[in-house]
C-alpha cells in the first residue's frame, strides 16, 4: 500500500529505534503524551513500546471521542430512536458503548432500527431512500470528522432532505490539551500531536503549548516511522532545551490547515458554552452544536431529549488515567469489575481508550516475550 508500507519498513524502524536510544539521556525519565486515540491504537498495534528504552514513557491522552462521551448523551440519542419511525445510525465505534439501558447494539437486539454507517453521507443517502422514516446520525469525533458532518448537513439543506438530523457530540482538541496542562498533578515533557485533526486545524493552534507552556510538540502521522520520527523530534528539542511546533506529517498536514473544511464547520456549527467530558468534567468552549440556520437538521432542536447527567462510579479513576497520573492497571477496577466486555468507565468502552488498549494488547505480555527473535 503506497504511503503506508514505506513507513513500516523494518530496517528503517530498527535504525530509528537505535537513534532514539542514543538520544534518550539515561539520567532522565521522559513522559511523552500522544494526544490522539488513533496514535494510542497505532502504538499498541505496531508494538512500538517494545522498541523504546525504559526511560521513555508514553502517556495516552484524551483524544478518544468515544471515551470522553458522557453516558447521558448516549441515552439521549437512543431515546430519540425509541420512536419506531426513527433509524439510528452511527459509526461502528459507537455500537458497543453502553448507555444506562444498554448499548446501541443491545437496543438493536431488542428491536430498535440501528445501523452502522461508514460515512455521514451514507446516513443521508439512507434518509433519501427511506422517505417515510427519519434518519438520526449520532455524530462523534474531533475536528477530523466534524467537517464531514458539516458538509453532509450543507448537502442535506441544498438537496432539501428533511427526514434527516444530526445529534452532535463533536468536540475540539485544544481545550482537552489545556485541561491536561492545567491539571496540577500532571507532568508531561512533550506532545505527539494529532496528525489528522491537524489536517483540518493546521499547526498554529498548538503554538501556545510551546510559547506559554514550554513543551515541544511534533504533529505526527500514524505509521510506525511517523510516530518514531516524532519521538526523535521531541527528544532532540528536549535535549537542546527548545520548545517549538514541528510538522512531522508534512506530506498531509498543511501548516495553515484546510480552509474549505474550516469554512464548512463555521457555516454549520458553533461552539457550545460548555460541554461535559467523561473523566475530565465540564470544559468551556470545547464542543460543537448545530447553528440556528441548520436548526431543522439539529436533532436536539427537533426532538425532546431527557438530558439526564449520568456520572461514573467514584471508584472509576478514569480522570487520573486520562491525565497520565495513573497507569490503567493502577486503577482499582481495572481487569476486575472493569473490562472491555463490561466497561465501567470511559477508557474501557472504546478499543483505543487507554485501559482497553492496555487490557487487549499489553496485559498478558511477559518479560520473556520482549526478546523474541524471528519465528518462522
Amino acid at each position, binding site marked *: 500500500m503506497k504511503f503506508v508500507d514505506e513507513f513500516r519498513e523494518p530496517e528503517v524502524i530498527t535504525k530509528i529505534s537505535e537513534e532514539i536510544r542514543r538520544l534518550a539521556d539515561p539520567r532522565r525519565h521522559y513522559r511523552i503524551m500522544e494526544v490522539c486515540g488513533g496514535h494510542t491504537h497505532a502504538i499498541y498495534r*505496531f*508494538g512500538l513500546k517494545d522498541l523504546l528504552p525504559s526511560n521513555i514513557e508514553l502517556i495516552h491522552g484524551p483524544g478518544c471521542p468515544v471515551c470522553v462521551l458522557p453516558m447521558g448523551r448516549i441515552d439521549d440519542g437512543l431515546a430519540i430512536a425509541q420512536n419506531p419511525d426513527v433509524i439510528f445510525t452511527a459509526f*461502528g465505534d459507537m455500537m458497543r458503548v453502553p448507555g444506562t439501558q444498554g448499548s446501541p447494539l443491545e437496543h438493536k437486539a431488542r428491536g430498535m432500527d440501528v445501523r452502522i454507517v461508514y460515512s455521514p453521507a451514507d446516513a443521508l443517502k439512507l434518509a433519501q431512500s427511506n422517505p417515510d422514516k427519519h434518519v438520526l446520525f449520532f455524530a462523534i469525533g474531533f475536528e477530523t470528522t466534524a467537517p464531514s458532518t458539516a458538509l453532509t448537513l450543507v448537502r442535506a439543506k441544498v438537496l432539501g432532505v428533511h427526514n434527516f438530523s444530526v445529534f452532535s457530540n463533536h468536540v475540539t482538541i485544544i481545550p482537552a490539551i489545556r485541561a491536561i496542562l492545567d491539571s496540577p498533578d500532571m507532568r508531561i515533557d512533550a506532545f505527539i500531536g494529532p496528525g489528522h485533526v491537524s489536517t483540518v486545524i493546521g499547526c498554529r493552534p498548538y503554538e501556545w503549548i510551546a510559547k506559554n507552556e514550554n513543551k515541544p510538540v511534533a504533529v505526527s502521522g500514524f505509521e510506525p516511522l511517523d510516530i518514531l520520527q516524532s519521538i526523535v523530534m521531541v527528544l532532540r528539542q528536549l535535549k537542546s532545551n527548545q520548545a517549538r511546533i514541528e510538522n512531522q506529517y508534512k506530506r498531509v498536514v498543511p501548516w495553515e490547515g484546510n480552509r474549505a473544511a474550516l469554512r464548512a464547520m463555521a457555516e454549520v456549527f458553533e461552539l457550545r458554552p460548555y460541554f461535559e467530558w467523561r473523566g475530565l468534567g465540564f470544559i468551556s468552549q470545547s464542543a460543537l452544536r448545530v447553528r440556528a440556520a441548520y436548526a431543522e437538521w439539529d436533532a436536539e432542536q427537533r426532538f425532546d431529549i431527557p438530558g439526564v447527567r449520568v456520572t461514573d462510579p467514584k471508584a472509576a479513576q478514569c480522570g487520573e488515567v486520562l491525565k497520565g497520573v495513573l497507569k490503567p492497571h493502577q486503577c482499582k477496577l481495572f481487569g476486575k469489575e472493569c473490562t472491555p466486555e463490561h466497561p465501567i468507565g470511559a477508557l474501557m468502552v472504546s478499543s483505543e481508550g487507554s485501559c482497553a488498549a492496555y487490557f487487549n*494488547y499489553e496485559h498478558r505480555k511477559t518479560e520473556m516475550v520482549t526478546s523474541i527473535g524471528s519465528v*518462522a
Partner: protein
Amino acid sequence: MAHGAGGKASRRLVEGLFAPLLFGSSSEPLGDAAHLDFDGTKIAITTDSFVVKPLTFPGGSIGELAVNGTVNDLAVSGAKAEAMVVTYLLEAGLPAAVLEAEVRAMGKAACTAGVTIAGGDTKVVEHGKADSMYITTTGIGRPLPGLKIDARAVRPGDKILLSGPIGDHGITILLARGELDLEADLNSDTRSILPLVEVLAHEAGPGVRWMRDPTRGGVATSLNELARDSRQGVVLSEEMIPVRDAVRGACELLGLDPLHIANEGQFLAVVAPEYANAALHALRLAPGGEDAQMIGEVREQPSGAVLVTTGYGGSRIVDMLVGDPLPRIC
C-alpha cells in the same frame, strides 16, 4: 447477539451452559467433531448451522457454505465426510426460485466434495422469523488413519501451518451487504479442505497434533482456543501471514484486523517440527495449497495467549473476538 459470533461469548455459552448440562463429565477439550466408538466401529459426527446475509455472494452461497462447512469440520477433526443430512428452515414468502438455486448449489457442492446427502427435513416459519433461509446440517464420516487430533499433545516448538490467505470470506460478505458502499474484486474462499487435509495426513500424519478451520472469529479466535486448550503460548510472525491486497485494503479502510475475519476454505494445523517443512512443501504442491505458509510456532510463553510479532521487534497480544468485528473510524 454476541454469542453467535464465534468468539468469547460463544465459547462461554458452550462451556458454561451446554457442556456441563449435555456433554457429561468428559474432560476432553471441545473440538469441531465428535469421534465415537461403537464396539469397534469408529464414526465421526458433527453438526452446524448456516446463517448468512446475503444468501448469495461472490464465490458462493449458503448451500455451498453448508456442505463445505460440514465437510471441513469433520476434516479438521481428522475424519473424511461420507454423508450428511440437512434441515432447511424457510421463511414464508421465500421465492421458489431462490430455494431451488440453493438446493442445486448444495447438490453441486456435495458432488464436488464427495459427500452423499442422505436425507433431510424442511420447516416453514412465519414471515420475519427466518431471514429467508437457515440451514442446519449433521455430517458423519470415517476417521482418517494415522491422525490423532488432541490439543493436549501440542508442545513448545511445534509449528503452525496455514493453508492460504485469510479474510476473503468475511470481507466478501461485508462488501456484499452493500451498506459500506465498497467494491472489490474479491470472492468467498468457500471450498472443501479435505483434499489438503488428506495430503497433510499422508505426508506428516504422526506429526499432526491439532487442526481447526478458522471460521467465525477468524484465525485469532481459533489460535486462542488452541492456546487455552493446550495451555501453551502461540507466537505468530506477522509478515508470514498471507493476506490478499483487497482484504488488506478493506481492513485498513474499516479499521479491521484480518486475524479476526471469518474464513470458509482454510485450515490451521499444528505440526511437530521434524515434519513441518515436508508438510508445508507437500501442501504447496497440492492443488489449492499453493499459498500455504508456516505462520508461527508454539512456545511456553505467553501461556494461554496469542502473540503476533512484527519484523522489527515489536509485538502485540491478539485476543479472541467478542462479538462481530465492527468497522471503526477512530
